[in-house]
């Protein structure tokens, strides 16, 4: 019987023989796996963060929070553990980041002093600023680089 070729050759991965995009994608996915894991542990905290964005119609806050955090988790899981699905996962994570960044931008324009909560910020988190936008844009560029 012919031996099935493994999807990821760990020896090659460890000796850095894969392209840079591969490692960037892994780190990107791991970051979101941790962040979405935190949100899944405490769904109310993330729902509160979505509410505090004051963009989603209030009755839809919990639905949006539940769907977003699970989508983030599923996409990050695909990026890290399912090589065939990596690009799909990356596209989803970049899209989610675009949504978060759009919300931060809108709230900056509205001059609303709120926290982002995009990555499970604690209660002492600083309010959104232009730096929040810069950070999110840097992450979007990282995601797009991994998609090359």
């Amino acid at each position, binding site marked *: 019987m012919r031996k099935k070729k493994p999807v990821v050759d760990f020896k090659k991965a460890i000796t850095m023989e894969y392209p840079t995009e591969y490692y960037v994608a892994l780190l990107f996915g791991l970051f979101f796996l941790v962040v979405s894991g935190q949100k899944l542990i405490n769904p109310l905290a993330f*729902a509160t963060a979505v509410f505090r964005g004051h963009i989603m119609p*209030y009755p839809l806050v919990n639905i949006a929070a*539940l769907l977003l955090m*699970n989508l983030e988790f599923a996409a990050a899981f695909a990026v890290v553990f399912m090589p065939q699905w990596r*690009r799909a996962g990356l*596209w989803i994570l970049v899209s989610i980041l675009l949504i978060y960044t759009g919300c931060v931008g809108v709230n900056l324009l509205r001059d609303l002093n709120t926290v982002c909560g995009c990555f499970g910020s604690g209660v*002492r988190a600083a309010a959104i600023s232009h730096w929040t936008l810069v950070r999110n844009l840097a992450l979007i560029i990282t995601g797009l680089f991994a998609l090359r």
Partner: protein
Amino acid sequence: MSKKPTAGETARRVLWLILAAALLAVVVNLIHPKRIPWVENWGSRAEAQAVAEQMPLVQLSDMLNFLRDGSRLFVDARPAEEYARAHLPGAVSLPFQTLEKYPAVVVQVLASDKPPVLYCTGPECDDSLLLAVHLRKLGRKDVSVFIGGMNLWQSELLSTEGEAVQ
């Protein structure tokens, strides 16, 4: 490394992941010990009303800065007994529910050279917001509200003043 999937394949997988996430959301929220209702009336919260009133909000991180630099006047809108038990350092008491008993404090807040930051118990109470709206009507335009209130302050074990000093 595996061959790069086509755009069509990627699009199909995106849809599958969205479906899987929706299913995961249903299952996880069914068995989660901290599950939340799918629909909740967030609109009744004081913060939602504050945004509707275009009232500036203050975060805990801002409050810590204000406490350090002393640039704001903290105003406690809770009943006087609650203020006596514990309040934010340096806060003045101006109970919204019995406002007519405190004309001197109202004048003090209106005349203060520091912008007032109002708070009450927490996100569920609206005394601070109602008082802020009232003060704004009286001409104090630079009021803001710390929605987290006393509950958030105490949950972070920050220092307080009053009978039950922390």
